[in-house]
């Protein structure tokens, strides 16, 4: 299937805005540049554009994300987003992971922590090419922060 017409352009993507959005989650500028490039600068154009749209809209649900928001979510658990290389090229005892982890706390609302179902959800979120897995992780941070604010007494 061809992806033509309007989806062939993602000129609206403003990487600086996503970089700013993710700054509380990935404070190191070099680490964040890597993550943002993988989400918005690699892969098919329609994925880049969709990632941008969804992240910016989710960012509106959790405006002014703070380090405290991130720390609270991180305290509930994170799992690495692996850098996928062919299996024979993986480094034993050295996790090849992106500098953005996947927060697992928000999944507790769907399946108990440690359950097979939650593990399967993590697999689904982490699977696929990096522009999917990293965008999923970034969205989970924003969704988690938004839910936490909603539930705050």
């Amino acid at each position: 299937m061809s992806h033509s017409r309007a989806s062939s352009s993602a000129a609206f993507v403003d990487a600086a805005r996503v970089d700013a959005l993710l700054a509380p989650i990935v404070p190191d500028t070099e680490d964040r540049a890597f993550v943002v490039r993988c989400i918005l600068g690699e892969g098919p154009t329609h994925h880049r554009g969709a990632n941008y749209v969804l992240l910016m809209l989710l960012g509106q649900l959790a405006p002014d994300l703070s380090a405290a928001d991130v720390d609270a979510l991180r305290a509930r658990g994170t799992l690495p987003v692996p850098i996928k290389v062919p299996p024979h090229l993986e480094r034993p005892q050295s996790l090849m992971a992106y500098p953005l982890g996947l927060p697992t706390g928000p999944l507790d609302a769907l399946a108990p922590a440690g359950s097979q179902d939650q593990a399967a959800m993590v697999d689904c979120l982490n699977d696929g090419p990096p522009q999917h897995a990293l965008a999923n992780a970034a969205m989970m941070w924003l969704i988690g922060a938004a839910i936490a604010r909603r539930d705050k007494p």
Partner: protein
Amino acid sequence: MTDLPPGLDQALSAVAGELGMASSSWVFVRAVARCSGDEAVAKLAEEVGPEFVVLEAIARAWLAGEHEPKTDTAKVIEAIGKATRVVVVGLEVAWLDRLLDKLPASVKIALVTHSGFPVDWERVLDNYAGRVERVDLDTFQHWAGGKSALLTFAYGRAEDARAAVLPLWLRACGADVRAQFRSLVAWNVLPSPLDLYPRRLVEVDADETFTHFV
């Protein structure tokens, strides 16, 4: 009119693989200038240049008054940033040697041992006394990671951002690899863009291809 010794193109082919095209060109341009003067450098550019466009560019720079390669490492070290592993794609010893002098020993270095010229890689790597590890196109992804950088050498950059690089870069840095290394760095070794068709090289859009072009 100065006559150049015959076989310079063959001699250049013999050393370009183990020194790099720009590094070996500087050796040849300096030697010709020292022995026979600038007129001979111009003739070298004219006779050997079409076959070795990098030499032509360096001879042209020499005649314009540039008598040393620009090997300052500050910008490339800044581009490498906090990476703890650097995989070098392509070889330019004049630049790589300077970089190794400046990089902390904690930064691991690997070289993709592949060239369009004949190379005795054991001899090349012996010069680095274990500081540089050998990888090839099938294994360099073993070095991938969130603190890993890919570094190659570029041979000039035009105003429209076209830059000439080794075809090896395209073989190494596919869509999969781009997301496996945090930084994709090009270190420009020529003072000006190539004038001639980039034989032995390939043009890429530097802005699209690299995270850092220095």
